[in-house]
Every structure is written in C-alpha cells, then in structure tokens.
C-alpha cells in the first residue's frame, strides 16, 4: 500500500475514533472535563475507568464521528486547554498510581489566534517535560492521524503503538508539499518522502508495535494493554527507561 493510501485510511470517514476505543476497552468510564484554568476543550476526552481489573486514566484526541460532532470537537485539533486538561489528569494518575492510556488521532494542534494567545507552544512543551518523568506507566496508541507536536504532546510514553493504517509525521503531507514544491496538491509524493507509515516508524525504533486492524482489534488492544501494564507496574526504573527510549532516537555516535 502506498504511503498516501495509509494517510487516506487514517483520515477516512467512519474510522473508529477515541470514543469507540474507550467504549469497547474500558468499563465504567467517567469523563472528567476542564483544565481548571480556562475552559474544557472538547477535542480531548479524558477520564478514569477500568481496564479489566486495573483502574486507569484514559486520555484521547476525539475528532468526532459525524459532521455535527466534528464541529463540536474541532475535528480533533486541540487548543492549549486540551493539553492542560490532559496533563491535569496525568498528574492525578501519578498521585493515585493509575497507568495512563493515550489515544492519538489529530491532524495537529490547532493553529488559531486564541491558541497562540493562550500559549499553544508552552502547553505542548510542558506536557513533553512532565510526561517524561511522570511516575506511572504510560502507553500511547496512534489510532489514526499522528499530527506533529499536537500528537507528541500525548505520546511521550513507555511504549508507543500504531494501528496498521495510522500515520505519524512531523508535518502533514500537504504542508510538506506546499513548502517543498509550493504545491499542496503534491501530497502523495510528499507522503512517500516523509516516511510516516507504521512500518517506517517501527523500523526507526519510534514505535514498539503495529496493531492489525481486524475484527478482534478492541480485544487485542485490551489484552496487550493489560499485559504491558502488569509488566510495567513492577518496573523500578520506569522513568529512566522512558528517558532512554527517546535518548537513543537519532543518537549520533
């Protein structure tokens, strides 16, 4: 499959969103709203629930399932208050020793006047720093689009997984094409150049595994999460390992 086909699949209408994963994997989910500073960002769903027997914190970017919901959710482009809501829930997870699951599906952090005024860059920067030393296990799963800094702000984790038809990139193929060839229409070529498929990222060591998109996907993810958290909760050097996970990426001898 070509890289751009993966991009189209990752963005396809009708593709399962964060809400679907929460519904099928987590029992007794209680959503928690707001960043306690400015507002509640509907682009990000956060809350607590149970994964099998394990109490967990779940945070995910939600694009919305239909046109109306997409409007409400800003198509999964979060504002600073969304990232701050996520961080607030992660801090609570640390306090109550709950593992954190992040679902990533975003074209990118929102580019707008309000987002800049309220410190989009600062909000993402703070998440990167705090997640690196959060004293509880974190697993991030790219379920659709992993759009640049807006995706990374929920993907500093002990392990990052990708669905087989998801993508994760430093810039959108359209943005890349516009810069390279002054032609956003050449997104297909740009998608190839960017090496943004799950296979590419597995090869670079940026992700730990690729999850097949078959009919058992929810059960597969659930079992993998339970297994990994059971393994990680006994881990003593969790944050050191997390640091080393990123430390070795792009390391130069």
């Amino acid at each position, binding site marked *: 499959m070509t890289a751009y086909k993966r991009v189209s699949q990752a963005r396809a209408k009708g593709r399962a969103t964060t809400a679907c994963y929460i519904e099928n994997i987590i029992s007794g989910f209680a959503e928690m709203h707001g960043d306690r500073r400015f507002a509640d960002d509907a682009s990000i769903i956060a809350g607590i629930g149970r994964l099998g027997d394990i109490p967990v914190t779940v945070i995910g970017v939600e694009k919305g399932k239909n046109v109306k919901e997409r409007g409400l959710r800003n198509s999964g482009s979060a504002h600073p208050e969304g990232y701050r809501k996520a961080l607030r829930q992660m801090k609570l997870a640390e306090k109550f020793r709950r593992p954190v699951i992040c679902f990533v599906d975003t074209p990118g*952090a*929102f*580019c*707008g*006047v309000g*987002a*800049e*005024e*309220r*410190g*989009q*860059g*600062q909000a*993402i*920067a*703070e998440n*990167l*720093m*705090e997640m*690196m*030393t959060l004293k509880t296990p974190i697993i991030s799963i790219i379920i659709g689009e992993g759009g*640049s*800094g807006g995706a*990374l*702000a929920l993907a*500093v984790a002990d392990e990052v997984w990708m669905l087989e038809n998801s993508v*994760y*990139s*430093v*810039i959108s193929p359209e*943005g*890349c094409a516009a*810069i*390279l060839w002054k032609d956003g229409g050449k997104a297909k070529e740009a998608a190839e*150049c*960017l*090496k*943004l498929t799950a296979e*590419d*990222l597995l090869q*670079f060591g*940026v992700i730990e595994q690729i999850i097949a998109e078959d009919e058992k996907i929810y059960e597969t993810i659930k079992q993998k999460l339970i297994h990994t958290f059971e393994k990680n909760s006994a881990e003593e050097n969790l944050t050191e390992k*997390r*640091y080393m996970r*990123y*430390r070795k*990426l*792009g*390391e*130069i001898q």
Partner: protein
Amino acid sequence: MIFKKPKNTLEGHGKFSVFSRKNFDPKNFDEELSVECLKCKKSLSSSELADTVYVCPYCRYHFLLSVRRRLDFICDKGSFTEFDSDLTSSNIIGFPNYEKKLRNAKMESSEQEAVVCGKCTINGLAAAVFVMNPYFMMGSMGTVVGEKITRLFEYATEKNLPVVGFTVSGGARMQEGILSLMQMAKISGAVKLHSDAGNLYFCVLTDPTMGGVTASFAMQADIIIAEPFARIGFAGPRVIEQTTGKKLPDGFQSSAFLLQKGFVDDVIDRRRHKRYISRILKLHAREVAQ
C-alpha cells in the same frame, strides 16, 4: 554564493515590515558599508552596528545575529569552549535533495549545523551555552541539533551548571521526518532532568522562534526573555490566516504580545543581555561539581 540570502521558509515575512529582512546580512560585513535599517530606514554604518551588537541605535530594530558574533558578545573573552563541533547531519530518511540543502547551508553559514554548544564564563560566572544559527536552514531542528542540545543539558546536569540558550528556529526539520519530531521529546527529557537536579535554565528567544522549538525547549526555561520585535509562536502567521480566514492584527506573536499574554518574563534589548544574564546567574549561583 556567500552573499546569497538565507533561505527562510517561515511564512509571513515581508508582510510585516518589522520582520522582513530583504537581502541584508550583517554577518558578511568585513569592511565599512552603509546599510539601511529595515525598520526606520535610517542609514547605518557597519562599524556602528558592530558596536551596538547589530541593534539600530535609532529605532532599536534587532538585526539577525550570527552565532559567533553572539558568542563573542555574551562570553568572556577566550572563555568559550565548543562541544561536539564535528557532529554533522546525514540524510537519514532518504529525503529528496537534503544532501544538497545541507551542503548549501554549511556554505552559507560557515557552520556545520544549526546550533553551537559549549561552555563559557559570563562576567566570570560559568555556564553551559547554546546558540542557534539563523543562517543554517533557518535554525531548523533535526537529529544533530537534538543530540547536541541534549548532550549539553546532560553535561550541565553532571557539572551542576546553569544553561543559557538563545533560540532562533523555524521549527522541526521536515527533511528528517519523524526523527526530528522525536528530538522535541529527547531534549525535553534532558531539560527536565537538569531542572529536577536544581539547575537554572535561562533562555533568550530571538526572531523568529517557531513551531517545534517553541513547543519544546524554548518554552521550558525557568526564566525566558525575548529580544524586542521578535516573532515567537507555534503556528506560522500564514497558516493561521488560512485556517481562520481572518487577517492577523499588527504585533500578533511579537515579543511584546507574548509579554502581555504572560509567556515571557521580560523583553530585553540585546545590548543589555550580558549584564542581565550575569545578574541572573549570580542570583542562582551554586557550587559547581568538579
């Protein structure tokens, strides 16, 4: 080739007169030249500009400053020791024309990469220092930039040294794909460990500081100051105008705007930087590990 204008892929330049640079490039001044200030249009001589660290004496417009000139101004004479000057980028994801771009960037900037790291003293106070390079692919952050800054923070953590940084960047380097994005996380981790060990990180944001650099180490310092008239933000102005369909107000994403919104501690004229930084370092002085 040497006199070629640095390729600036940032959006919006030229639209706002304060931010436009045209063909002026102060690093190329070896002999007495006359230059028009890009903001107030007054005629300035190159020696006059060198005396003011490339700040217009009439309107305080801050010209782009090369890494070496900034280091000469900030570090005590002869105190700077460079680290990892031999690290160079390669085309790790096989991106089209990246080798050529790197070759040109090296030639245009006379530097190996978009950041210079090292240690120095500033009015007698020891510090680890990084200065980003506007003439090398607009200071974009790839794996070498990530690695050099990470190593600097690790060194400073080990030695209990403060880090003083100067940012100028268009953001993450597209040509190294996802591995550029990962440098944001990598550096953030090193900054956090340095911070948790009780060390000071002081950062100066200069024009322009955008994208993935803003969304990581530029905004993670304990004390953040900005140069006057700098553009600092996450998204480029053209992208925001396209997304929102509205024209942006004057001064949007300027250092004064960030000060007003509460994202920088102060806006300080470049000519005062050395004195200001040494005063801050003195207030945070702690024992340096041997």
